């Protein structure tokens, strides 16, 4: 069944198809439509789940954690300040190895108050131990929502799927909605390996002294490492059933490329257009889309970018005092390449707080990288700002 729906409702539909059992949320723009739709789905019986609108995002995640420990499938959604308020609980879900799934609508962080898109909210949660998946269009949003539950429950880690404010959250696109029966086969009811069970009593969240703690973290790290392969398997199965795959990373027209853009989120679609246009003019450019940010697909990115003369990373985010965060991660990932095959890397900071990223913005990044490549110059700085008012 095809429907024309906004990205927020693509999430709601995905959650309904995944048969989440407890949904706990707090309103925040631009996420609110997700849980409003879900509250209706719960109220009118389309989704047999328990829904509660709690009193804060911190409580929303805490309730998901409580429900998840009881062995049920849980979901919440948030954005920006709400995600930041959850921070303590994000660590708790991941450290507790609980497969909570959450949608984060990428929205800039205050102050300056701003409801428009950038990635600083989700990226500032980088080290909480959540798997992070960035989506490019509403179909990918729906597919990723359902897949996230399967992935989370396979590795016992929480998954955050991420979509851009307004460009996806409030933009309508045709979305193919799979049949419930097919999704049920793909994603059966959750079978928790460990849960609160009166017949098999266990204590969760207990004190872990120095002689225990480190191994818990090692197990968590190993699960993260597995998550990449598991994601491939989940996608492969989804692809077989429904005919769509996205990849943890997606190289696009990178063959023989001299400059490769690295993108995430909706900027990718604009970048594809720019790449096609430049290719038509004979310029050797391509792009690599990063969907999975955690675990970081280091080896794959190394393979995809080794030997490319110049890489231009488009970051809709900033780690103040350093540079764009994807650029930073890539510099570290590419460091181990032998120098002759290690690309020059330009890190562009663009589109913060929802400033438009147009084909011209991306074109300017490409032109600057091209000029630097031609002149054999190293990047002037690690943060190159494009689209800033004089």
């Amino acid at each position, binding site marked *: 069944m095809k429907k024309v729906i906004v990205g927020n409702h693509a999430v709601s539909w995905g959650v309904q198809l995944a048969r989440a059992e407890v949904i706990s949320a707090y309103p925040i*723009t631009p996420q*609110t439509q997700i849980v409003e739709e879900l*509250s209706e789905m719960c*109220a009118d019986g389309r989704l047999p789940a328990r*829904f509660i*609108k709690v*009193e804060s995002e911190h409580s929303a995640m805490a309730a998901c954690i409580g429900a998840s420990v009881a062995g049920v499938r849980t979901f919440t959604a948030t954005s920006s*300040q709400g995600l930041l*308020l959850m921070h303590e609980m994000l660590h708790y879900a991941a450290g507790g190895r609980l497969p909570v799934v959450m949608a984060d609508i990428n929205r800039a962080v205050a102050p300056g108050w701003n409801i428009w898109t950038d990635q600083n909210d989700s990226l500032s949660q980088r080290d909480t131990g959540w798997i992070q998946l960035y989506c490019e269009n509403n179909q990918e949003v729906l597919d990723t929502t359902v897949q996230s539950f399967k992935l989370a429950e396979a590795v016992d880690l929480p998954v955050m799927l991420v979509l851009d404010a307004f460009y996806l959250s409030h933009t309508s696109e045709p979305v193919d909605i799979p049949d419930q029966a097919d999704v049920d086969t793909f994603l059966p009811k959750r079978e928790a390996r460990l849960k609160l069970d009166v017949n098999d009593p266990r204590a969760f969240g207990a004190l872990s002294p120095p002689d225990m703690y480190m191994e818990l973290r090692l197990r968590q790290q190993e699960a993260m490492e597995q998550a990449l392969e598991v994601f491939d398997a989940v996608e492969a199965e989804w692809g077989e059933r429904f005919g769509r795959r996205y990849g943890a990373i997606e190289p696009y027209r990178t063959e023989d490329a001299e400059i490769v853009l690295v993108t995430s989120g909706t900027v990718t679609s604009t970048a594809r257009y720019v790449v096609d246009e430049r290719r038509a003019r004979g310029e050797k450019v391509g792009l690599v889309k990063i969907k999975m940010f955690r675990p970081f697909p280091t080896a794959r990115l190394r393979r995809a970018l080794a030997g490319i003369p110049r890489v231009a990373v488009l970051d809709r985010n900033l780690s103040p005092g350093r540079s764009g965060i994807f650029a930073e991660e890539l510099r570290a990932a590419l460091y181990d390449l032998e120098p002759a095959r290690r690309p020059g890397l330009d890190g562009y900071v663009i589109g913060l707080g929802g400033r438009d990223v147009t084909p011209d913005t991306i074109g300017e990044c490409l032109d600057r990288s091209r000029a630097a490549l031609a002149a054999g110059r190293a990047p002037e700085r690690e943060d190159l700002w494009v689209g800033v008012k004089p």
Partner: protein
Amino acid sequence: MSTRTDDTTAREHPIAPFIRMERMPHIWCPTCGIGTVVKCYATALADSGVDLDKACVVSGIGCTGRVAGYMRLDGFHSTHGRAIPFATGLKLGRPELLVTVFSGDGDLVGIGGNHFIHAARRNMDLLVVLVNNFIYGMTGGQNAPTTPLTAHSSTMPFGNFERPFSLPHLAASCGASYVARWTCLQVRQLTWAFAEAIGRKGFRFIEVIAPCSTLYARLNKLGSGLDLMRFYHDNVEIRNGADTREVDIGYQEKIVCGKFRDEERPTYLELMHEHYRKTLGDRYVPMPPEGGLIRGED
């Protein structure tokens, strides 16, 4: 002689000096009640003779959260639910200021509920103005901790079954020294209440019932904001001194308004001052105008 005047010169609105006109137009919907509350507060402030350089407004998030940004006073638009702790810090840093918290029900007693009860318990010297429209307005009409039983909201599409707070009772039972409730129809009483509360100290709580025509009224088919004002006109029962256990608001039932409590109690800073003076004696060095420093053993 005709009394008709042809003077069509635009005159300044009486509260224009209190408003950041460069930020107009505001985001509030037609017939929203918040503007009226701001007008009453500004009028009271003007009449009170308070030095405006010593008056500041702290807001949280939501429709009422915009007040701090719109008023031409030192203002702080804080994060969601945290207006009271921000204001607490402000008061401790500058005890001579008149610190007013202006925010909505979802902000102050939903996500910020913990701060509300503790500031009241401590009798922190804050004037807290809570505009209650029974719903989360800015984010699209979700159920609030004040939504009356059976009222519809976007997250309670078949009516609310969660018991709401009765805010005057919550404030009074936590220890607030001044507690009143008015609707934004009673502009005189509301203005007087503001003026009175400005002159008091301690945790002063004024709940103002205000129409949200865009969401609360629409989701409940209650007509326009004007219809809600008519409802207030017909259903407000003024009972000054009422027992706050008896002022719950039911869905489309009578709204008890009035001043429910006005008791002078020592504020947090007064208690601190008093306590350290008693226990530390000369080692305690009062810092004007209230509060103090502890002198080291020298």
